[in-house]
């Protein structure tokens, strides 16, 4: 029986508490910091010769789907009633709306040092000390809306721009492609400035602080953000049922992307699953 992932705004007070408590327990057990490390380790950029599994690549979506399943499993070992909620940033768009409340993720960082000082993930609670970070700061940081240079969260139109593209991804399967659902959702644009960050990337930038860096997993909103993106992949699949994950086959030996992207039946490191095996989650969870 598949479990349900809910909109975080629709969680009951009890569900919120259980979700937060499970996160804190996973952190206390030392498991959470391993997720931070894994995300850092698998962020490879496309100007390099590395295999790109997590970003700037077709497997951006299945990689994060698999990553979320592992965190969700860790949460459910603590409390089997918990599932990952999603944050619909096209609807909950202000710095004080869900999930930035004291009973969920806490609020914005304070102006002086971006430190989150209220809610369950504030440093002073002792339960959310940053151990794997880009800086030596030990507290969670946020800069919601980017005070010094404000930007807006993506809109429904921005998400639909991605959803309406019937092709999953296109050559050369990297951050430079301007067509294909994957990069329209991942959000690597051309040029510089505000217009160049779309959907996924723009939300990381809007939250700011820890979410802007390599150790973005330190902010638990990472999971709610990616659950919403994961839901968009499912919506895209329903809207374009004759289309699938691409590339279907690994780029050939004479292709510059040879060995640098994960094709449909390739194993997705660090796991044994393939994108093909991760396309249908209906036996495990569904979105409400």
């Amino acid at each position: 029986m598949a479990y349900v992932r809910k909109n975080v705004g629709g969680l009951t007070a009890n569900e919120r508490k259980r979700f937060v408590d499970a996160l804190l327990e996973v952190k206390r057990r030392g498991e959470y910091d391993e997720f931070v490390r894994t995300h850092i380790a698998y962020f490879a950029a496309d100007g390099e010769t590395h295999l790109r599994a997590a970003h700037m690549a077709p497997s951006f979506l299945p990689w994060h789907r698999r990553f979320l399943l592992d965190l969700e499993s860790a949460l459910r070992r603590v409390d089997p009633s918990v599932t990952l909620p999603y944050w619909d940033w096209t609807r909950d768009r202000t710095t004080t709306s869900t999930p930035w409340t004291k009973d969920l993720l806490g609020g914005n960082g304070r102006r002086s040092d971006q430190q989150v000082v209220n809610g369950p993930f504030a440093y002073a609670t002792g339960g959310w000390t940053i151990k794997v970070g880009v800086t030596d700061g030990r507290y969670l940081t946020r800069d919601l809306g980017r005070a010094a240079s404000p930007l807006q969260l993506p809109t429904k139109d921005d998400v639909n721009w991605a959803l309406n593209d019937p092709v999953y991804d296109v050559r050369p399967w990297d951050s430079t492609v301007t067509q294909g659902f994957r990069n329209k959702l991942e959000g690597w644009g051309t040029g510089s400035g505000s217009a160049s960050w779309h959907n996924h990337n723009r939300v990381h930038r809007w939250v700011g602080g820890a979410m802007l860096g390599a150790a973005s997993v330190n902010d638990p909103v990472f999971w709610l953000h990616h659950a919403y993106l994961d839901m968009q992949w499912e919506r895209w699949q329903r809207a374009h049922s004759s289309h699938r994950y691409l590339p279907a086959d690994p780029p050939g030996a004479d292709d510059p992307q040879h060995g640098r992207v994960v094709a449909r039946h390739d194993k997705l490191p660090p796991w044994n699953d393939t994108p093909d095996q991760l396309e249908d989650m209906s036996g495990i969870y569904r979105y409400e």
Partner: protein
Amino acid sequence: MVDGDGATAAGATEQVRASTTAGPGRRRVTRGLLSCVAALALAPVVAASRPVPPAAGGDSFDETYRGRHIQGVRLPAAGRSTSDDAWRITVDGRPLHLMRRADGTWLSMVDHYTSYRTPLEAARAAVDELGPGQRLCDLAPGLLDHTLPDGAKDMMGRMGTTVDMDGMDMGGVGAGGTGMRVGGRHGVRS
């Protein structure tokens, strides 16, 4: 990854791996990861086939920006298997690791979801995000070990499912309840 254009990429890979994580040193190297020590941070080796736009307009920079001492120097190509850029960047003496996008722009560990035209712009943008009194940690070395030849992917997959990273047993149960575990192949740890 040993024929056609792939030979260049594979060669570059081996260079990087040999210098960072080869052999029994792998764990030792990664064990030091994430500790806040000053160390050499190399901008990554990049694909030789890509056109190279102008970098910072020179081979080095050294300036104080918003009270932080930013230094960068383009590393000589000798000893590397590609002709592309590699930069050593520090902020107040601590390494700032940069990654390169296929369009030639740069992103840093601090600002990971935006890219900048030059290493200097990326370094300044990183300083913009550093809170008062915060210093960079060195996250770089493990990130240089991203590419594995095809044959090693299987091993990687097995590591992801079975290797107990120095006792860090995640005990994960993932998709389909197959008992998969989280565990980066770098064994990244603090």
